């Protein structure tokens, strides 16, 4: 139990008036665009990433419609290439990477550790502006004619051969990259310096651990990407090249530098998702998470080992065979902590008192899909098999299971779980459950056939394909329609709840985190008096 403490002499009275929610602070444009409140900034992020999610989704829908028939008949090959590039760039940099950290992390981390805000509120707002600026530049590049390099920008195609707006897109991604660096910096400093009295490291909720590990990756890996993109842009602009063999460079150098960021980036996307699941599952199983310390160590282990495995994207690239062996071994090792987490979530259900509210359905769906995605990763980590499977639909299916089945599922679960806290309203439980089931089914129908396609030899990024693959492509496209409906449903009923939902009590799920101690929606500085923490998280009881 937390107990109030009265060590607030240095804080002015006006800021701690309880009861005034952060939403009632004004609805003028200026009150939002100039806010430094982490909760309002989180909502700014939520609105913008939702926009980008649906933009990326439109590109995905067009891709799936095109692939329903073997002939490339809906759009031209160039348009198709620009569509999958737009889909990748938007979904990776403008949706997945900021999704859970910048929305849920921003809103919840200070509350979970018992702080009034992040350490640098103005920097936090600046991150959002950088993100919007970068997003706008990327959109500009896409509207001005598009980019056809794929989100990976492989050289020398991107430097010498593509005739599209590569430099503009690079600049956009670069700016978004700085936004994530600053967010990561803010989180790291906040977790280190602003924990409430009594909030030791092993009393932190796993969501905080996950976002902390994510922030480390953001801060240490993103700059490498930024510099690499600068070099690509320089090559393209001045017709010189350290990545271009025609000018003495090495394209594999680009791949090393690119994947040094972009593999850890997968963990940027999935670690926070693991954090969300680790909050939801204990709450609805009414019991403490099984093996808390192992879970925390596993998060750190994934974050660290995640830095060492990037070469598994390059097994057939002409990389040295020995380097391939090292990277393969390390890739198997990173699967161990992931496996630990899955087992621990399952064990958390044992002897629980499980109720199946919408957030729980999303979280269970996350565990299932993440398990499949993770296990198929082993196929790709096994060197000889990767020779057959890399750059096929097997890879496409694998990372969609992790990034969509994993991250998006958990993101939606988190949105549902904390919706009452964020908005002060309850959504319709029945619709929530229905949407979770539709999304789960639609997702599997979309992406499971792609595993089979990949093993059968269907290469990725193909605008047209041999007829024998059509059956599975049609199944996948049908699944995509279901999935699209599933994603539109929450948009509808959550928006509806904003106006017509029943007011939420402070703690509708009887959860134990510090964020549930505050009112719903929380007051401006979260806590009238800073809490003192006297025990670890997840103090649930089955009775």
């Amino acid at each position: 139990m937390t107990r109030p403490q009265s060590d607030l002499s240095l804080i002015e009275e006006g800021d701690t008036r309880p009861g005034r929610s952060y939403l009632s602070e004004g609805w003028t444009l200026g009150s939002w665009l100039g806010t430094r409140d982490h909760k309002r900034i989180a909502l700014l992020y939520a609105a913008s990433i939702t926009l980008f999610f649906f933009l990326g989704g439109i590109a995905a829908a067009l891709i799936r419609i095109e692939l329903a028939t073997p002939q490339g008949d809906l759009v031209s090959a160039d348009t198709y290439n620009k569509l999958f590039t737009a889909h990748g760039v938007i979904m990776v940099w403008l949706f997945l990477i900021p999704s859970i950290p910048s929305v849920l992390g921003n809103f919840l981390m200070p509350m979970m550790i018992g702080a009034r805000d992040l350490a640098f509120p103005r920097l936090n707002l600046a991150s959002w502006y950088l993100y919007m600026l970068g997003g706008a530049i990327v959109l500009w590049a896409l509207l001005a004619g598009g980019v056809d390099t794929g989100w990976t920008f492989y050289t020398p195609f991107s430097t010498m051969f593509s005739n599209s707006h590569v430099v503009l897109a690079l600049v956009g991604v670069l700016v978004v990259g700085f936004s994530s660096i600053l967010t990561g910096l803010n989180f790291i400093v906040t977790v280190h310096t602003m924990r409430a009295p009594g909030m030791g490291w092993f009393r932190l909720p796993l969501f905080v651990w996950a976002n902390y590990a994510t922030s480390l990756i953001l801060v240490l890996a993103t700059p490498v990407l930024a510099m690499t993109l600068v070099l690509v842009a320089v090559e393209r602009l001045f017709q010189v090249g350290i990545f271009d063999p025609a000018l003495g460079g090495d394209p594999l150098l680009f791949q090393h530098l690119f994947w040094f960021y972009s593999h850890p980036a997968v963990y940027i996307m999935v670690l926070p998702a693991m954090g969300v699941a680790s909050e939801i599952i204990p709450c609805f199983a009414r019991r403490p998470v099984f093996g808390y310390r192992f879970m925390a160590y596993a998060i750190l282990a994934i974050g660290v080992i995640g830095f060492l495995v990037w070469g598994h994207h390059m097994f057939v690239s002409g990389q040295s065979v020995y380097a391939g062996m090292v990277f393969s071994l390390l890739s198997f090792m990173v699967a161990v902590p992931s496996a630990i987490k899955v087992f621990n979530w399952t064990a958390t259900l044992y002897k629980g008192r499980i109720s199946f509210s919408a957030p729980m359905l999303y979280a269970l769906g996350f565990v299932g899909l993440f398990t499949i995605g993770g296990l198929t990763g082993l196929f790709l980590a096994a060197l000889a098999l990767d020779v057959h499977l890399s750059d096929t639909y097997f890879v496409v299916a694998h990372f969609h299971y992790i990034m969509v089945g994993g991250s998006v599922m958990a993101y939606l679960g988190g949105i549902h779980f904390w919706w009452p806290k964020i908005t002060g309203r309850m959504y319709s439980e029945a619709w929530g459950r229905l949407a979770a089931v539709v999304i789960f089914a639609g997702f599997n129908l979309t992406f499971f056939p792609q595993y089979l396609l990949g093993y059968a030899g269907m290469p990725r990024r193909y605008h047209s394909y041999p007829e024998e693959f059509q059956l599975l492509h049609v199944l996948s496209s049908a699944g995509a329609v279901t999935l699209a409906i599933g994603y539109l449903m929450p948009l509808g009923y959550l928006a509806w709840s904003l106006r017509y939902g029943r007011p939420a009590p402070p703690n509708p799920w009887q959860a134990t985190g510090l964020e549930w101690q505050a009112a719903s929606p929380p007051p401006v500085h979260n806590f009238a008096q800073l809490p003192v923490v006297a025990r670890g998280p997840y103090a649930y009881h089955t009775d």
Partner: protein
Amino acid sequence: MSTVKQPHAEQFTSREQQSFAGTFGMWVFIASELLFFGPLLFGYLYLRVHYPEASAAASRHTDYLLGTSNTAVLLTSSFLMALAGHAAESGQRPRAMRLLWAVAALGFVFLVLKGWEYHKDFQENLFPGPGFRPEHGGRLQQLPGMQLFFILYFVATCLHAVHLTIGILVCLAMAWRLRRPPPVGVSADAIEYAGLYWHFVDVVWIFLYPLLYLVGRAGG
């Protein structure tokens, strides 16, 4: 710390907490910046391993004298910056102000020398691209390697110059705001953060100097 009890931002519970958070944030930023230069350094390693002679030949085309004097200028500016931090911490604001002006001036001298060097590089056709034609020396088969060297040279020094420009602007702003005491003016903490940043920019140059200017000086 200054003797006056200073107020703190509302998200913190004490001035000490805020001060430490600021310093720590600056260090995290510096760690991130270090990685920012990572690809350049690794690209340089690639270059030296694959084109040892060409990179030595290219390095001989850089201006030894200007590079060395610039290093001295930057080291001295760092020293003055450290003095300014001490002065601000012990409450000697006018002294800190003067030192910051001096730091900014040295930074400016660095930029002028660097700009002059760029000018000479352009005149000697050392800018990579179709017009890349280094005079005297540089056999045909060394041209690709030399060109790669100059790409890295220009990207690295330009980025360094951008960082330095930001540093100069920060110094000027700090010096300007030092005119008035802390609640309105700038605190010793802020000078400390600016100092950390300035020293980091110095550290980058300390590594760039031998890598860009001193390779193969003795002839190859």
